[in-house]
């Protein structure tokens, strides 16, 4: 009878000793929280223009749609000016690609209009992949990054992945 009672007491006392585990958690969690980062840093590849020692080789004139157009986007104070340059296209063809978009709100550049125009150029010359971004001195870095995003893609469709950042010459 006494043996039975003793065994019942022993069964009732079986509990996990959680306090040491809790202590470990209390040390680990503040440490991890202190060194955790809640934002993810990503990168955008870009370059500055450099002097090239190689001369451009004369090549066969390709079909117009195969031409690689380099788009130049100037971020001015009151407008965004788009021009294009290409050795394989005539002056008249290039002039057709030029546009000036007015900036109505100086804090928000018209990225949607710019995107539409870039899509138009990309549609006509799908092999084009380079855009030269020329901001004026007052344009803030945040706007430059926003313009680079607009230039790179639209709705997951690639536009001009190679963005070169350049200061205005002259």
């Amino acid at each position, binding site marked *: 009878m006494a043996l039975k009672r003793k065994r019942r007491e022993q069964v009732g006392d079986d509990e996990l000793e959680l306090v040491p585990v809790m202590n470990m958690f209390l040390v680990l969690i503040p440490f991890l929280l202190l060194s955790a980062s809640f934002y*993810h840093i990503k*990168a955008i590849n870009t370059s500055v223009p450099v002097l090239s020692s190689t001369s451009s080789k004369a090549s066969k004139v390709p079909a117009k749609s195969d031409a690689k157009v380099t788009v130049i986007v100037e971020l001015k104070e009151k407008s965004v000016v788009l021009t294009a340059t290409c050795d394989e296209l005539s002056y008249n063809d290039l002039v057709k690609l030029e546009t000036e978009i007015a900036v109505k709100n100086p804090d928000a550049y018209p990225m949607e209009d710019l995107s539409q125009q870039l899509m138009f150029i990309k549609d006509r010359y799908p092999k084009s992949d380079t855009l030269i971004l020329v901001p004026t001195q007052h344009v803030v870095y945040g706007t430059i990054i926003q313009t680079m995003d607009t230039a790179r893609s639209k709705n997951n469709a690639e536009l001009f992945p190679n963005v070169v950042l350049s200061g205005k010459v002259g």
Partner: protein
Amino acid sequence: MALGRSNKKPFNPPKLQLTSMMDMFTIILIFLLFSFSNNPEQMSLDGQMKLPESTSKLDYKDSIRLVLTKDELKLDGKVVATIKGDEVIGLDKLYDALKNYRDVADSLKQDVKIVERKEHILFLCDKDHSFKVVNTIIKTAGKAGYPNFQFGVVEMK
């Protein structure tokens, strides 16, 4: 006799219900450990520095780090120039340091034929700086032999 008998029950210390707290801690611990394993290399940024947001999904690569805070320019953690308004003071120090990196990298390339070198600069810049400041710095880096950059941005949600 009845007065002398104690009515007190034996004291049983209350037991804490730790199970639910354990569950919570386990979840937090797993979340934190996962966020570490996703991005093991972290970088510490100046608390006042605001990086621009971008849709870019590209991960940055280990490279020379140039950090432009509101009033300082740091190259690999060392202050090389200061910013006053739109002026960068002490650019020659930046040029010399980068030129030194370039020379070392070039000599390594010739001697050991190392293929992977730090060929670009990871540029972290406060989003409110004007292009005048940014342009001065990236042009100096370009002249010192580093024309390729990775602009550090915060991933847009």
